[in-house]
């Protein structure tokens, strides 16, 4: 069975393997997840510390990291993260795509000019991040579990998160690894290729962005045609992810990723589909298989677990769940679980 649980230090090796074996094109680790062992270990330690925080006492912005585990083999097949505050205490960079009307009464001309404004507007919003999954699981129920488990986590720890939630979708990257938006804009200022910059942004403080990013707005019309075409467009491999998030209620607004021009999706946290449709139930045993498909989550902090299960609701507000699922969740009869229909 598939299980989503918080990452632990022992997962480091397997997480790095996802990046290594699957190849950069197939399951390129999200830029917010470092590809270096030490940095990744630090990230996991940070996530564990974030889970241990007691009610509202976090001394630094919380960052969470979950893994998708095949419980039969113990193998990890994917990662998903949440940053409670985008930017993690530092500015969170985006471009805001906006328009100006350049008009001349005398000449009877009015034209719409699109401009990309550097923005920190999304700083401190809750951010879904660090999503990666092995290629064979794309478009499967495991894929959906990994992504939506985060929303059940948010539902169970709502006070840790903000009213607005955002997620950056990877932008267009061509088969040769080049990123049109980066090549037309960022490269001139950062003097490095996209992958290098992308890695730095996962690894280093974001100070380098402030230092190197052009501070003035950028006219869209001066970008290369390929870069203009890529604005707000998702990488084709992220389309299933994008669609899943759209079903959750995320919508593309006016924000773009500063490196690859990919879209930033926004939603109101309390309106997320999984959160709205989720319910807290008492766990009951089911002897026979069958019932509807549910996402089921239980536990707090480091004890958080989320899985897929078949279950049947009862009139008494309890949920009949197969016992093998109990074990996954580490729960027993009468314990509270949170479920959302698949």
């Amino acid at each position, binding site marked *: 069975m598939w299980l989503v649980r918080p990452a632990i230090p022992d997962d480091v090796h397997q997480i790095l393997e996802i990046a290594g074996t699957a190849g950069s094109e197939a399951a390129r680790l999200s830029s917010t997840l470092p590809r270096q062992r030490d940095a990744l270990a630090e990230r996991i330690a940070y996530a564990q510390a974030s889970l241990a925080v007691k009610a509202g006492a976090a001394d630094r912005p919380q960052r969470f990291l979950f893994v998708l585990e095949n419980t039969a083999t113990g193998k990890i097949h994917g990662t998903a993260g949440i940053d409670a505050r985008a930017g993690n205490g530092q500015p969170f960079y985006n471009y805001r795509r906006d328009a100006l009307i*350049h*008009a*001349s009464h*005398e*000449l009877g*001309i009015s*034209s719409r*000019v699109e*401009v990309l404004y550097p923005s920190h507007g999304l700083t401190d919003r809750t951010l879904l991040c660090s999503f990666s999954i092995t290629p064979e699981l794309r478009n499967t129920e495991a894929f959906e579990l990994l992504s939506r488990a985060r929303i059940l986590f948010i539902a169970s720890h709502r006070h840790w998160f903000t009213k607005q939630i955002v997620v950056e979708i990877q932008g267009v990257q061509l088969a040769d690894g080049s990123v049109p938006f980066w090549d*037309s*804009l960022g490269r*001139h*200022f*950062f*003097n*490095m290729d996209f992958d290098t910059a992308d890695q*730095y942004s996962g690894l*280093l*403080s974001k*100070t*380098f962005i402030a*230092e*190197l*990013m*052009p501070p*003035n*707005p*950028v*006219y869209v*019309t*001066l*970008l290369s045609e390929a870069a203009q075409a890529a604005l707000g467009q998702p990488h084709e491999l992220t389309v299933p992810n994008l669609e899943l998030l759209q079903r959750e209620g995320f919508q593309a607004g006016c924000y773009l990723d500063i490196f690859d021009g990919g879209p930033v999706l926004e939603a109101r946290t309390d309106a997320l589909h999984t959160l709205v449709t989720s319910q807290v139930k008492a766990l009951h045993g089911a002897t026979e298989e069958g019932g509807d498909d549910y996402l089921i989550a239980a536990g707090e902090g480091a004890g958080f677990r989320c899985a897929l299960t078949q279950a049947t609701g009862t009139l008494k507000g309890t949920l009949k769940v197969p016992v093998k699922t109990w074990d996954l969740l580490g729960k027993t009869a009468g314990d509270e679980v949170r479920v959302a229909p698949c």
Partner: protein
Amino acid sequence: MLVIRPLQETDLEDLYAMAQKAGKGLTTLPADRDLLRHKISLARDTFSQKCAPEAGLYLFALEDTKNGKAVGISGIQARVGLDEVFYNYRLSIAVNASKELGVHVRTPTLHLSNDMTDTSEICSLLLADEYHGGGNGLLLSRCRFLYLDEFRKHFSEKVFAEMRGVSDEQGRSPLWDALGSKFFDMEFSEADRLSGLGNKAFIAELMPKYPIYLPMLPDSARAVIGRVHSNTAPALRMLQAEGFNFNGLVDIFDGGPVVEAFVHTIRTVRDSINRYAKVTGKNVNLDVPASERVMVSNRSFRDFRVATVPATCVGVDTVSLPPEVAEALHVEPGDSVRLAPLKDRAKTTTAAG
């Protein structure tokens, strides 16, 4: 004989013919009768002091005295940016550096500026083809420096000239194609024509206001920023010889450079001297090379006239003018005149001993 004098109404047809021949590229003098007529009347009002001298447009004609025709024109706009907004791009460098990453990137950037506002501009220089050579262009251009110096209080301390930027035979400007046209769906020649008709500020309103990062422009466009059209290269060299220098501003359409100088440092101004006019009965051969001639101005605000005489006419206190020159200059014996070398320095001073 050729003499500089204020432009007048009767010059309209000559001016129109010249403007027509010049074609594209001379933004400030389009072949448009109404506009030219308007410019002439502005100049007339300026010389007759119907308008404030600081707001004036001083246009001079080069007249061939044998037929009274205007064969050249040059001008001074006492202040730019008074009524309309005067735009340039300032070419500057932004450095983005990260010690952490060892990155240090210089990004040339164009900033929209109005820095030349309230500055005097020398402009509108045009010489009929058949009069090119023999120092006529020098006279047409340099006579303005004598005027600027003579009436310095009406002009700014600094004067500038906008030099025509690079465009090809079809009138296409690489900078316009890469930048202006992206914001304003129009050919450069048309935008240029509209500018000449006084619509430059309107067009500028449609142009980008935020800085333009040059690395985002194609090489063809970047290569012409601050460069002059090959036809303008001689004019640029002439101004450089006078002490004008590129001041970091370029034209917002074609990227042509703005050159500037302080009036008191302009070579013609520094080398100019005053003499009393003496009308000589001796036969003077006026037909000597430009390098052996000096400009003689009558120092008049309303009826400014400049002609050239051989440097040998210059004496210690006086300058000997043949009667026809004195007449063309509207000068009487004993009048104070101002002299400056037409071409090389030192001619006046050596002749003057």
